[in-house]
């Protein structure tokens, strides 16, 4: 039996006191422990942003790379070793802004990556600019007249692209968040888990209180396999905000479709130098 403490290391988080990231970190550890995935049997890939520091605060294989490029690194790692579960940790600026193009194509590939987006509707690391999910009209230092752009709806976007697994969690409801993380981990295919996470320092609008008044757990009889219904539900935002698995399908994953890695992960495939060189030369004379 693993416990969340098995993932604990001596790194002091540099997050603000009260930040929603703390509860996400704790929930990630709990989920992995309950799924019996030890620290060396999982890879966390992150980019840049407050969220992306998460892998540094727990024991796990980590690749902390560029801002916005979490998914390409995760894709390469996963194609090289699909025996290793890969979790991509990103923020709303990181994944929906800088890395938006990669999100579209990771969903299209349906590569078996678990994308956890810490969505605080603001830029935290750079101190308070609007993010793609900031509400229209939100006033910031850089948007003194309010945000003009339409708020990005990541769930609707993912459902439009027929993503394998689309869910929303809330950092203030860790019990449910843990279930969602575990479900995402269990899903075979690309999984987007958008996690509403208050930024206690810069987002004075979307606070814990603001979310608590709106967020609800989706009803048990809801059918996440109905794409049109899921799309409609994904549009719900305002007085009530649904959390839970909004959409799910069972498309084949990229790893299943690439014939080269169908049986054995790439990293486990031996390379025979001598035979390869001989084979290359024979091939040349044949043409």
């Amino acid at each position, binding site marked *: 039996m693993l416990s969340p403490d098995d993932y604990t290391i001596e*790194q002091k988080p*540099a997050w603000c006191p009260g930040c929603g990231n703390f509860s996400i970190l704790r929930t990630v550890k709990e989920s992995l422990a309950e799924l019996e995935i*030890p*620290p*060396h*049997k999982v*890879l966390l*890939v992150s980019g*840049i942003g407050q969220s992306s*520091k998460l*892998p*540094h605060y727990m*024991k*796990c*294989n*980590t*690749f*902390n*790379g*560029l801002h916005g*490029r979490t*998914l*390409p*690194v*995760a*894709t*390469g*790692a*996963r*194609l*090289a*070793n699909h*025996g*290793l579960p890969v979790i991509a940790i990103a923020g709303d600026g990181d994944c929906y802004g800088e890395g938006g*193009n*990669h999100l*579209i*194509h990771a969903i299209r590939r349906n590569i078996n990556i678990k994308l956890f987006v810490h969505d605080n509707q603001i830029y935290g690391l750079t101190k308070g600019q609007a993010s793609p999910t900031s509400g229209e009209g939100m006033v910031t230092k850089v948007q003194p007249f309010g945000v003009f752009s339409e708020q990005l709806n990541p769930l609707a976007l993912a459902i439009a692209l027929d993503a394998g697994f689309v869910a929303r969690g809330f950092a203030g409801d860790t019990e449910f968040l843990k279930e969602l993380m575990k479900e995402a981990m269990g899903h075979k295919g690309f999984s987007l888990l958008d996690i509403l996470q208050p930024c206690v320092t810069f987002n004075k609008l979307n606070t814990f209180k603001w979310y608590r008044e709106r967020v609800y757990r989706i009803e048990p009889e809801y059918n996440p396999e109905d794409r049109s219904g899921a799309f409609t539900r994904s549009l719900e935002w305002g007085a009530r905000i649904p959390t839970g698995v909004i959409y799910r399908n069972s498309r084949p994953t990229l790893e299943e479709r*690439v*014939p*080269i*890695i169908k049986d054995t992960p*790439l*990293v486990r*495939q031996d*390379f025979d*130098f001598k035979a*390869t*060189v001989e*084979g*290359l*030369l024979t*091939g*040349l*004379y044949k*043409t």
Partner: protein
Amino acid sequence: MDYTVKIGGEAGQGLVTVGEILSRVFATAGYHVFSHQDYESRVRGGHNFYQIRVSETPVSSSLEKIDIVVALDRASIELHGPELTDEGFLIYDSETLEEKLKGSRYIGVPFKKLATKDGGSPVMANTVATGAALGMLGMDIAPLLDLIEKRFRKKGDAIVEGNVKAARAGYGYAKEHCPECRFLPAPPVSAKVMLTGIEAISLGAISAGLKFYSAYPMTPSTGIMNNLSAMAEKYGIVVEQAEDEIAAINMALGASFAGVRAMTGTSGGGFALMVEGLSLAAITETPIVIAEGQRPGPATGFPTRTEQGDLLFILHTGHGEFPRVVFAPGTPQEALNLTNRAFELAEKYQIPVFVVFDQYLADCQWTYESLSTEELVYKDYRLRGDAFASQKEYKRYAYTESGVTPLGVPGDAPHVVVADIDEHDEEGHIVEDAETRIRMTDKRLFKKLAAIREEIRPPLRYGSESPDTVLVGWGSTYGVIKEAVDALNERGDNAAMLHFSELYPFPARGGYMKVLEDAKRTVCIENNATGQFARHMSAETGYEFALNVNRYDGRPFTVDYILRGIEDAVS
């Protein structure tokens, strides 16, 4: 024997197929071949050509004069008719071209009519042209018929038969209607191996154990992705077409971190997008090989043409300070060797290594009696399986004497592997302190760079032992500069070449500097406008060339161009 055949036409007319078949026929017949291609950025129309030099001795550049022009369109007649040698001939389709061309050097061959005469299809007109060229040269038709059989077998007997008839018809017609053709082919010897630069880069990567290639299509690098995809199943390679170049390099780094040899390839514009990823490779100490196919910029410039314009960009780009290795092979054989070695050094030192080429090297076909595989190496530097599991502890960036920390494969041992883009401690976690910063920079930059320098080999010397004239070049210009040296020496000059293919770290000062210092005149020859290698060499060694010959019209050098350039530079 030293003949040049040029096939000209519009994009989409099939001139590349004619060129490829002729080159292949010459090589399998036992001749040496050198070919280059010139094409526009379009799928239909425009004007393209494929130029093949065929000889019984090795050849390494294209000539300006043509012995046989195969004109598939009117523009080819106008553009390439004047390039004919005094003994040269041009063949064109006398049926489809409205006016008949006068002059005994212009031979009308009814390509389409001959193709359809015995029930063949009009698309076999190009096979008629191919047969006709072979007939004019007076070469044996058997290798062509063999190749047709092999190439069209899958399409069925009717297609094979039609093409065989078309080839024979063109061959016979040319023999009959060109009694003035006086080409004397040397007796063929043994079949030659023929390959292009881009094929050689692909083979070099496979020979080095490449397992993952991600890229976004961009001329002239796309051929690598095409070749690797074709061989993916046989050699167990995952090829992923990325959504953009940024994704391409980041995917390759992800795969490399996970434990397999990875590579990406692109051209200047795509590489500009990858640059942030280059710095990521550097600070995370993740091995990667980057093939950069230069083309004339700025920006899109001449997208299908050739230039050596990205050297200083590749040498200096990437924010921050870190070691890299830059190779620029001069021939397909060298492209094979250096791409293989790029992986060796990338893995050994956990650094980015470049294989720099251009459209010219990518497309040129060279022939060899046989390819040498002596220099190819493979050593797995990763910490895997039991070897990793048996380690008491593991820190991804542990300080070592050499600066290199063994690269553990995540998942193979109870230890975690932490790679970090921030300045980090030995375990890979974020730090802010000055002391660690200095120690980590010393580790990944100075310690490694000192060792990498020892690996770099001096430039290749060719020609006179104690030359008065030294021609210097790098990368794809090897073959043409070598022939320019031969031409100078035939004229009674005392000339030699220094060819650099290992460009960074710069080769340690050695015999080559004395060759330059003792020469009466030194000429740096570059396919760019500003002499980027000359500046690089000046920065690294303090050496200043007396003369520079630059070509920046997007076209490759010829021997004559170089000789004229030297004369102009002298005066």
